[in-house]
């Protein structure tokens, strides 16, 4: 598969930004979800990028970072890639390379937002993207992206 051209990638990011900008003021469709024991309140884009590429391996609480991702071209993954400024494919390849290199733990492979919520309530170090409209249990909570 051919790698996306830098120009196309830039256009995609711009498009995604525009789309997000048009929805400014409105609620985000997906939110970053983590375990209730995780005391982090907000997370930056850069931190999110590092979380999903193995750059951050441990939360401040001491829990080991465990990324959850739906490895297919779904809305959650697209949203995440857009947040991180890459395409879905680039995101997944990056994750695979990092895991292959041993730079990060293998992400938990999820199939839906429900899986994401369940993953977050069960694992103290879990972090994933779930439908923002979904009700979060007590053991999970959403983290704001700065």
């Amino acid at each position, binding site marked *: 598969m051919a790698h996306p051209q830098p120009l196309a990638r830039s256009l995609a990011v711009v498009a995604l930004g525009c789309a997000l900008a048009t929805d400014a003021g409105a609620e985000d469709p997906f939110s970053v979800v983590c375990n209730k024991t995780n005391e982090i309140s907000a997370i930056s884009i850069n931190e999110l990028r590092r979380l999903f590429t193995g750059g951050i391996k441990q939360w401040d609480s001491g829990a080991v970072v465990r990324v959850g991702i739906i*490895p297919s071209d779904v809305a959650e993954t697209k949203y995440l890639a857009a947040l991180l400024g890459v395409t879905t494919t680039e995101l997944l390849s990056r994750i*695979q*390379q990092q*895991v292959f*290199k041993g730079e990060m733990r293998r992400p938990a*492979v999820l199939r839906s937002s429900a899986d994401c919520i369940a993953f977050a309530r069960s694992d103290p170090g879990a972090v994933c993207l779930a439908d923002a409209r979904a009700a979060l249990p007590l053991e999970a909570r959403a983290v704001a992206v700065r």
Partner: protein
Amino acid sequence: MPRLRMGLFPRLFGSFLLVVLFSLSSAGYLVARSVREAGFAQVEERLSYEVTMTGQMLASALFAPLAPGDATLQAPIKDLSDAVHTHLSLLTPDGVVVADSEGGTSARAEPERVPADVARALAVGRGSAVSSERGNERLWVAERISRDGQVLGIARASVPTSVIEQRVDAVEKQIAIASLIALGLGVLTALGLSLSIVRPVRRVADAARSIGSGALTTRVEISSSDEIGDLGKALNEMASQLESMLDDLSRGNADMRRVLDTVDQGLVMVAADGRLSEERSARLSEWFGTPAAGACLWDFLGQADHETHDRLYMAWSQLSDSGLPLALLLDQLPKRIRSGARAFDLDCRPVLAQPEVLESVLLVVTDITQRLEGEKRETLHRDVLRVVERAMSDRMGVLEFLQEADDLVAELSAPTTTLVAARRALHTLKGNCAMQGIASIAQLSHEIEERLDETAAFDAADLSALVARWAELREGVLPVLGSPDAIHLHSSVITSAVSALLAGEQRGKLAERMIRWTLPSVDTAIARLAEHARALAQRLDKGPIDVCCETDGTPLQGERWPAFWSAMTHAVRNAVDHGLEHPDERARQGKPELGSIAMSARMLDDELVIQLADDGRGVDWAAVADKLRRAGQPAETREQLTQGLFLDGISTAQEATTISGRGVGMGALRAAVVDLGGRIEIDSGPGSGTTLSCRFPRTAAGAVEWSEPLRRNPGPSELDNRSSATGGHAH
């Protein structure tokens, strides 16, 4: 093909060297093979580990099976390959390379081109193979990558076999160097071991040779406690025992030597091939000289006598060449030999290796010269006594015998005597001596006759011995008998003559009476023959016989009558020996048990008739005829047969004995009868006995014309009162 002789050292050294070489080569081969196998196995194991780790890492990383064209992992694979120094590649489950550490990917492989390791990994999870790809040979290891039962792809690792080979070669070089060092050490060890064995063995061998050459004090220095040390100890013990045994043997030999030096017999061992042993008693060398080394018995004992040499050689040759029993062959060896003036008895005692297999013979030689001389003197003494004893009763007869024997010995010694005449003289001498009881000369004469039959010639030594023996006897007898011319008269004869003289007997008659005293008569001669016949019958185990004598006292004048009476002894011996049967045979034939012989001597008309008759088996005329024909003589008429009986060599006896049977005596008798002008007649039939009649003209009895008829006068010469002879003259 010559056989290669190798010493112990080259054999041991060679053996050790072979063992070392074989061990090193075997070990080298096995190690090299193991190194190669282990090298490949080790590399394969490392590759397996790397593909396993790669697979595990990939399984963690992949969210889905590898797909053609996915170059996501190209860079990580390259980095990983650089880290582990191994060529790595990733393949889709279909065998399409999606990442390769050496760069580039390939298109989907054809199904039939799928490498063996990949095919095996797809089939069973892991596979390895050596195959040539990309221009060089490589060892490939592939492993299937799966997760949750789903095949994600294939991880593959490879190393060029040349790398493995280089490593193996390096190891093999090290092994080769180590082997060379080991070989050197092995050679040195083999050399040391060989020398450690060979040197002590050589010392033992040198000591054994030294002991063998007689140095029994030689000992081996024992420097080890192993088997060779035991061998040395055993050799030392053996040498000590040998030394001890040799001392004992030396003492025994010295004792034996003293015995051999002092024993009066000749003792020597003779090998089966006749060779004498070195050890012998001193007497043998004293008697026969020192034999040469390896000399044979016959050469040693027969060196001075060819006959002894030949007899010994022939008899000894039979021991090994003949298949006859050993005892019989040993019995045929000469038992007596002469060497110069000495006589020796030989006693051969066999030493058998096994029954009937002769190993050697102990020869015992005894000098019997003195014993024989003693026996000879004793025999001569006995003979002299016997003659003297006979002379006490028949002095005239003994004197006649001596005169006759002197004549016979002289005839034998005369160079002009023919063989026939000499044979008759010898035979007559034998008979007369036997009749007089002179056994030594009778036996010697018989032995000479035996040799004469074999050689048909007189041996000068025999004649010398006979003449010497006779001279010795004669010298012993004559001094006792006094002068032959002296007349010994019985006192009764003198008394009778004196009475006649006093009674006035005529002078002529007195002269006649006195002349008769000087003449022998037939009475005496017949009585002597009768006595001889009786003695002969006893000697021949024919029991007592009845001898009847009838004589008329006819005096006999002339020097040739003694020869006749001597010859008559042959007829008497024939009658007793061949004529009279054994008492048992006579009993079977219905004859009286006692054989009968009648002798008579009477003047009938103008003839003096002397008869000898027996009642024995008679002459076997058929046998006489057969012998005459075989001798080429006529045998048709009774006259021819009768005349044939008097031919030399014709006898009806089966074999000659010391008494008779040679066919010589009757010829001598006829010669004596003819010499006196008489004739001889024989009347005989089968089973009815034989009558021998010798008829002489009156003139043969002498020239004396007697004034009155002959009458018998009993005289002292009457020898046997049992005889019926009643006539005779006093002497």
